[in-house]
């Protein structure tokens, strides 16, 4: 039942952005989020979490498609030029769709 489909938005970026990302996604309508520590490599080089500065976080947000698009748009304008950041999204089945 498509009523149970929500968008899972995943943001991988610098730990130093955590506070602002948390603030932003909630302001844009996300009801919750999940963060895991990670490391990685991309266009802005290796970030291997050897110390605070070069560690990454992986933030998951389950939300409506509209909210997901709004967040993507915001992130693109606000952070893409200056920060190590990757964003991708996909549809997932959830129980309690009203929760998100």
């Amino acid at each position: 039942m498509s009523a149970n489909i929500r968008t899972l938005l995943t943001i991988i970026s610098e730990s130093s952005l955590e506070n602002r990302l948390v603030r932003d996604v909630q302001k844009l309508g996300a009801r919750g989020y999940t963060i895991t520590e990670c490391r990685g490599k991309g266009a802005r080089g290796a970030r291997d979490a050897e110390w605070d500065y070069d560690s990454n976080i992986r933030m998951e947000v389950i939300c409506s498609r509209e909210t997901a698009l709004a967040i993507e748009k915001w992130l693109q304008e606000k952070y893409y030029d200056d920060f190590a950041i990757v964003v991708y999204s996909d549809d997932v089945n959830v129980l309690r769709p009203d929760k998100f």
Partner: protein
Amino acid sequence: MLDPIILFFLLGIIAGLARSELRLPSQIYDFVSILLLLAIGLKGGVELAQQPFAKLAPQILAVFAMGLILPLFAFPVLRKLGKFKRADAASIAAHYGSVSVGTYAVAIAYLASNDVSFEQYMPLLLVVLEVPAILVGILLARGLSKNMNWGEVAHEIFTGKGVLLLLGGLAIGWIAGPEGLEPIKPMFFDLFKGVLALFLLEMGLIAAARVSALRTYGAFLLVFGVVMPLFSSLFGIGIGLLFDLSVGGTTVLAVLAASASYIAVPAAMRISVPEANPSLSLTASLGITFPFNVLVGIPLYYQMCLWAHSVTGG
């Protein structure tokens, strides 16, 4: 005789260059930094109790002024000779105007093992020096644009781990006093050099990881990373002589001036001047200036201070 803590730093560099999988877990690195910051603060705080604050005010002002001036020297050089983008030049300048706690820790260990005493309120000047260069750096990058969120910057600086633990340690040491700290001495004072050794081991690994980046950024950064601290140290020595501090105290001031930040400033710049490339400034301060100061600078500044004092008959 080589101080063992320096040997730990070299071990880290070697392991790093050999691509060893040796790592201090980042949580342990955090732990070790916290211990160093608190220990330095506590040490200073105890002495602070003995000091008439009035006597310190002028020195605090002088050091603060130095923090404002140094970036103003670095910036044009980075722009003109280094051909760096405005934001990058401003950010690097801020790093060099500020201070590195790790370098300070090595310096006091160096003085201790050479039985050179120094004014114990130096940690206070250390904190003072963290801040001004950040403000100058932001202004150099942004100008006086009004959409600059200074509140966020201030919060970032003063609630950052570094400033907070140093000030906290100073306050605790000040209030508790020497006998009050007795029971926590084993943890914060007896272990100090051992903790510093582990810290330097990891710093060596981190510094080595930056060497590869060095190539990409070219020779200018290398030269700047060595010459700038030498230049800055003169200001530190100047202030030391001005307030005729002991040779040790003057050396510490020289080190404070010569050291480049890799904690407070990068964090602040990332927020207020995000378009500056952090890897550029960190390669300079961590990959070049930190090793230079630890291995060459500190003993050198000490010799310079001995000479200066003999000349000025201090």
